[in-house]
């Protein structure tokens, strides 16, 4: 379905509103193909179409919500009735209310590429097979490819409200990804690689294959080092995961509800001077770029930390209103939930030195190439973090032996202040934050 058809449905729902009632309808539709190959054959091929609607009702300062996975008229009516009924049981809150158009023009972004539509199933299968072959051929120690996938999606959505919001959007996306197994003697290590784009022509199978080969083979022979305090260089992919967590502490919701460790720190130096952190979904380079947020407001560039100084928190309409400011266009949601607040395309402003130069300046350190258990090991409220990690030792400015079964630990507060350098290698990833090499001093590494 195209965005206009979805908007028609959303407008129809909004039209059912009664006096004294605010209604918001979010309607989404997507078409997806996923191919997985294994040992030269198609293991699975899925084609799917899905749609859904989320309806929010605000009446007497109370809010109710309901969602459904179909767009049949009887279901739409039932969903609205359910949202209306749910509103009766919520607590009244004077700050509840749908957003009104704020006059900011949405950026013009090119997120929909028709080339994806003309890309046939056979070609998709071939891409996945090509990737599997490339990984296997990459190194004699690669003994298997656990999975090689091609996937794409064509998504459209629309938002309408009784307060005059009318927003539509659509985008295309595709990816290839492989999980590899490398073996030497008794030992096995794993790796992964991927490439993402808006249409298959921009996918780089060679890069995905190289990463999968490299990540698995470089870990062969890894041992657990003794515990010590070291300087770490975070691989861009690792930095991006940390940024996502730091971003969550800068949400207006966390601040208002007393769950942000930065709540009273606006204007303070919370990070090293080299740290400038920006959430900018208007940047077309970002894989998660979007012209409108989850409430239908135009997205905008928000600088959160500038030169290490905390400058702003992100808001949706509720947290903006309640904190006496306004939405920063940062409502995030799917159709199955009410809008939260979050980063949409977060990145550090890159420095001017490539990772090789950063590493050359470190006597004793670890290049952290992968982390695991980040979400169970980071407490975004207290700031404590401890995560499983693996990577390569850095000795006298050069990469040395691989290490595994280590953890790195610090607090988010300390880590931001201990940032010694930001690399020049900014990379957009299939997540809401970008990667860049990051040097952090004084991190505790636990091992044997």
């Amino acid at each position: 379905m195209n965005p206009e058809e979805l908007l028609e449905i959303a407008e129809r729902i909004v039209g059912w509103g009664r006096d004294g009632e605010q209604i918001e309808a979010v309607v989404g539709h997507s078409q997806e193909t996923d191919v997985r190959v294994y040992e030269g054959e198609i293991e699975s091929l899925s084609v799917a179409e899905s749609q859904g609607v989320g309806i929010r009702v605000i009446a007497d300062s109370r809010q109710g919500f309901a969602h459904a996975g179909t767009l049949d008229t009887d279901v739409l009516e039932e969903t609205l009735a359910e949202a209306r009924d749910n509103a009766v049981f919520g607590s009244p809150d004077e700050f509840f209310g749908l957003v009104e158009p704020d006059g900011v023009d949405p950026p013009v972004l090119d997120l929909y590429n028709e080339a994806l539509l003309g890309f046939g199933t056979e070609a998709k299968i071939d891409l996945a097979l090509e990737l599997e072959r490339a990984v296997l051929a990459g190194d004699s120690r690669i003994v298997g490819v656990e999975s090689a996938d091609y996937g794409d999606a064509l998504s459209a959505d629309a938002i309408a409200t009784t307060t005059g919001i009318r927003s539509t959007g659509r985008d295309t996306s595709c990816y290839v990804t492989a999980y590899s197994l490398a073996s030497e003697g008794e030992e096995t290590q794993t790796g992964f690689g991927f490439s993402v784009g808006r249409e298959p022509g921009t996918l780089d199978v060679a890069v995905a294959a190289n990463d999968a080969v490299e990540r698995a083979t470089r870990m062969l022979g890894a041992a657990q080092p003794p515990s010590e305090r070291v300087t770490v260089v975070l691989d861009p992919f690792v930095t991006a995961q940390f940024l996502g967590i730091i971003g969550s502490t800068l949400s207006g919701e966390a601040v208002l509800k007393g769950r942000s460790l930065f709540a009273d720190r606006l204007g303070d130096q919370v990070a090293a001077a080299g740290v400038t952190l920006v959430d900018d979904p208007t940047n077309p380079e970002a894989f998660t770029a979007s012209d409108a947020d989850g409430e239908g407001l135009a997205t905008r560039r928000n600088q959160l930390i500038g030169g290490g100084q905390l400058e702003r928190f992100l808001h949706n309409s509720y947290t903006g209103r309640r904190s006496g400011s306004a939405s920063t266009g940062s409502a995030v949601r799917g159709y199955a939930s009410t809008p939260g607040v979050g980063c949409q395309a977060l990145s550090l402003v890159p420095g001017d030195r490539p990772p090789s130069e950063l590493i050359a300046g470190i006597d004793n350190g670890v290049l952290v190439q992968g982390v695991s258990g980040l979400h169970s090991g980071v407490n975004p409220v207290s700031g404590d973090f401890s995560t499983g990690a693996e990577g390569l030792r850095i000795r006298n400015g050069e990469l040395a032996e691989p290490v595994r079964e280590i953890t790195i630990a610090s607090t988010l507060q300390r880590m931001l202040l201990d940032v010694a350098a930001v690399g020049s290698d900014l990379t957009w990833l299939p997540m809401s934050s970008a990667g860049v090499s990051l040097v952090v001093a004084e991190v505790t590494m636990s091992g044997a």
Partner: protein
Amino acid sequence: MIDESVVAGTLSEALKTGGEFAEVFVEDRRSSSALLDDGKVEELSSGRTRGAGIRVVVGDTTGFAHTSDLTEAGLAKAARAAASAARGGGGGHQVAALGRVDAPAPNDVEVLPETVAKATKVELLGRADEAARAAGSAITQVSARYADGRRRILVANSDGLLAGDDQVRTRFAVSCVAVGDTGMQTGFESVGRPIGFELFDEYEVDALARTAANRALTKLAAQPAPSGSMPVVIGPGGGGVLFHEACGHGLEADLVAKQASVFRDRVGKQVAHPEVTLIDDGTMAREWGAYAIDDEGRPAQRNVLIENGVLTDYMWDLLRARKEGRESSGNGRRQSYQHLPMVRMTNTYLANGTEDPANIIAATDRGVYVAHLGGGQVNTATGDFVFGMSEAYLIENGEIGPPIREGNLIGNGPEVLTGIEALGNDFAMGSPGTCGKDGQGVPVGDGTPTLRVASMTIGGTAA
């Protein structure tokens, strides 16, 4: 949910272009939740999804399509889409006559949540908020969530299988923030069972809220966790997730077949201390991972994976079992009709030992006592795992000492299994969990008695 003749017709349509096996999975799910945060009932939410997933198998290839259109025409369209993805088979396969066989439910559901007034559900939230705040003036924020779901499924396949299940789950969780001189700390507690509103006959929400609040308050006085390798004692029920991660995933037949498990080729071998028996049991009454049938229509089973330290078997889904010419072990699960099933755990637990737990602690000179674990993650190919300690203490001179701040524990699955030195006689199940694999989440349970592992790495910041 759907007329039997329509199901049979859809299966025939799916086999028309040469498929060897076809399956229709129909799901109708309703859910409701209520959230209190910041002292206010912020939101009640209701959800409804229904649809069907259809797969067609030819050789090693599976074609899959799903649709929310459950009319005969809608299903036929999805069947053709699935079939076109898996074409090229020899053809001639017919749909066997469907014979309905329903497995017994693991337990009764007494009070369907949908029959309970919303006001009654909301009232639980207010009580939890009050109880948590009353636990100490340092408690500055409370959030409480009530959630229930009812999932009705119907599975039919071209072998003639036809089975259904009506799965009800109810859950309640509280999370608190405490503020002290050392900053903010959090505490969390949740309960859930595959039952209805009678969950609250068993659990008082006030007590759950106090547990969550006390976890946060305790951590205000916590010192930085140590770093390095040392003995770890895990409390009853607190450590099931360790075995879920450390070895459960590695015993899933799909990963084993792809050489992505450290436990490949280990059946019949001694993989753990002789006192270790590991079981995955989907029939366990009232436990979070239980069901009557899995998402391929196979009745849930009790599967012994490790018996007296010897690896006895892996867990199986339908396709992996067919390939090996054996039966599925009832572990074929999927998040929803929009997903393909794969091998998943249910309730995975380490059976009871014989030692007095007090003796296990007393015999530990210096180490860490983990009362409660958070989430975890494993690399099945290497066996390396990591998980968070959400409530832990130092052990000094055989006694539980001061609390330590949050951190991760890391280790290696096969090494931990052989490193188990002592097993207590105080078995308990842990908190309800959601296991993620390949992007799909399903409800799982876990359990352990008190146990000591000779050495694991604690990822703290203290020397």
